[in-house]
């Protein structure tokens, strides 16, 4: 499960106190939820808090049954490893590792045996259509291929929640659609996809859209109404 209650984040910038997010409450249902809003609306801050990258100034975040706002850095990393997957806009992959090794990385952290890591990573690369590129390094892959490897890696430990931050931002439209399809394919059953984007066309593919403005949740649209 993924739930936020009265979530706020304030930063100190010099002498001024900047509010990046204010009073955000939402219980993310299974399926795909897009978060949209103009630049500076608090999308990135929200994702940082939902994923436990950062701690809220106030409020609660619950991910996979753990209260992230009450945990230390390492405990939050543990929750992420077991319950969440990530796909960022760019710079997703570890440059010194091959596609296969990148996909296997979360499995290494989770203590999976080398043979099983390899088998599972290969299977995941097959799912995203990149088995043939398993031994390529990130700099030998196109942007779209890199994002697909990142998706395979994000799915490695079958997380309950997949976070994607502008995952198609750097891609041409064909690659972008393929990446989006892969992400949406995952958001079935009890699984959740949180898709942060400024592109309303992409957001329209989600089952619901959260609109942020000036750090506040101003509107929640369900699929039928999008």
């Amino acid at each position, binding site marked *: 499960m993924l739930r936020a209650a009265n979530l706020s984040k304030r930063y100190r910038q010099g002498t001024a106190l900047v509010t990046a997010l204010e009073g955000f409450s939402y219980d993310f249902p299974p399926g795909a939820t897009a978060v949209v809003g103009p630049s500076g609306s608090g999308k990135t801050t929200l994702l*940082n808090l939902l994923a436990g990258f950062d701690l809220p100034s106030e409020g609660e975040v619950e991910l996979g049954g753990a209260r992230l706002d009450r945990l230390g*850095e390492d405990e939050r*990393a543990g929750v992420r490893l077991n319950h969440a997957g990530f796909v960022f806009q760019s710079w997703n992959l570890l440059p*010194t590792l091959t596609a296969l090794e990148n996909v296997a*990385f979360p499995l290494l952290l989770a203590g999976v045996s080398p043979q099983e890591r390899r088998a599972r990573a290969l299977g995941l690369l097959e799912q995203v259509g990149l088995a043939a590129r398993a031994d390529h390094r990130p700099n030998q892959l196109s942007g779209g291929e890199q994002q697909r490897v990142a998706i395979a890696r994000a799915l490695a430990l079958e997380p309950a929640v997949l976070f994607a931050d502008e995952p198609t931002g750097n891609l041409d439209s064909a690659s972008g659609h393929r990446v989006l399809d892969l992400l949406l394919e995952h958001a079935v059953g009890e699984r959740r996809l949180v898709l942060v984007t400024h592109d309303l066309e992409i957001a329209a593919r989600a089952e619901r859209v959260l609109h942020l403005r000036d750090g506040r949740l101003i509107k929640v649209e369900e699929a039928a109404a999008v």
Partner: protein
Amino acid sequence: MELLLLVWRNLTARLTRSLFTWLGIAVATASMVLFLSFGEGLRQALTAEMGNFGPQIRVVAEGTDAFSPPLPELPPEMLDQIKALAPDLGILKVIPAVVMFRGGFDPATSFLFYGLPEGSDPRDFYPPAQVAAGRLDPWPDGAVVGAKKAELSRLDVGRPLRLSRDVTVKVVGVLEPASSMVDNFIFVPLKTLQRVLGTENYGVFLLLLDPNADVDEVARKLEAAVPGIDAQSTTEALKFAERALRIGDLIRFGISLVALIVGGLLVANTVMMSVFERTREFGVMRAIGARRRFIFGLVLSEALFLSLAGGLAGVLAGVAGSAVINLYTQQAVGLALSAVTPRLALFSMAIALVLGLSAGLLPARSASRIPVTEALGRI
């Protein structure tokens, strides 16, 4: 894909920088190994030397250290005194001798003369001694020359050897090479050397003991009975040498520490730069779920790997360098003066390990403490 593979990939991704750092550590370690190999070589040579040294006790005038050529300060009465005590103390033979050193630091032009009494030959001093040419006994007016000395100064049998303006002896024997200090000695009759020095005194009494006698006990009793002497046993001489060698080791280690610190700073710099360059990479790892200690271990392992690989190369280079030095010292004085012993190799590796740990700690700490949002540029 184990941690080691990650470490290897990260280091090889910046190959030139890693290679230079590795080389820096290797040179620093090699210089330390070489510096300290002299102490080890001397230790080995001395232990072997003392093991082959015939007399168990060396009596010299009080205040003479164990390894300096003693001055002729022991009067003939003292010899009588010691001879009188000999049967009670289990002393089988008392060999009065005189030692004279001529020349400087160049082994080819320095001469160490040992004046031995009639009826005594180099075997009393060094039992394994064997003659290669001529005879062993320098009496009445000959000289028996060690192998290396004979080679360096071209002292073949029959060649005259001038000891002073009016004393010249003839080489009557050349010893077989023994890889010992004896290779550099010239044995002459005691009376001849006393004439050269213009004295009736002796420089040293070499004592051969009953095998059942307690050497240190005899030395103590002698010193108590005969005032003004130092009775030095072989073990005591070794202890003295060990003290001197340790001081030498410390000085040499101190000098090589400078190189080591520079090497350590190289590693710290390489790893720190690599940490700065990989901030995002660490951010991605943390985002995926890597704990701080994983990042810490990864970065520390890189520093350790560099240091240990450099240390290993340094030890190997040290072994090669030591062999080259020994080629020279064997040629010059007939002794291997440098040795890379297992304990020196282990010590060097341990130093490299400590170096890696200290150089890697700060970068590892920095890498593991970068906030995820900052590392990913998500602020």
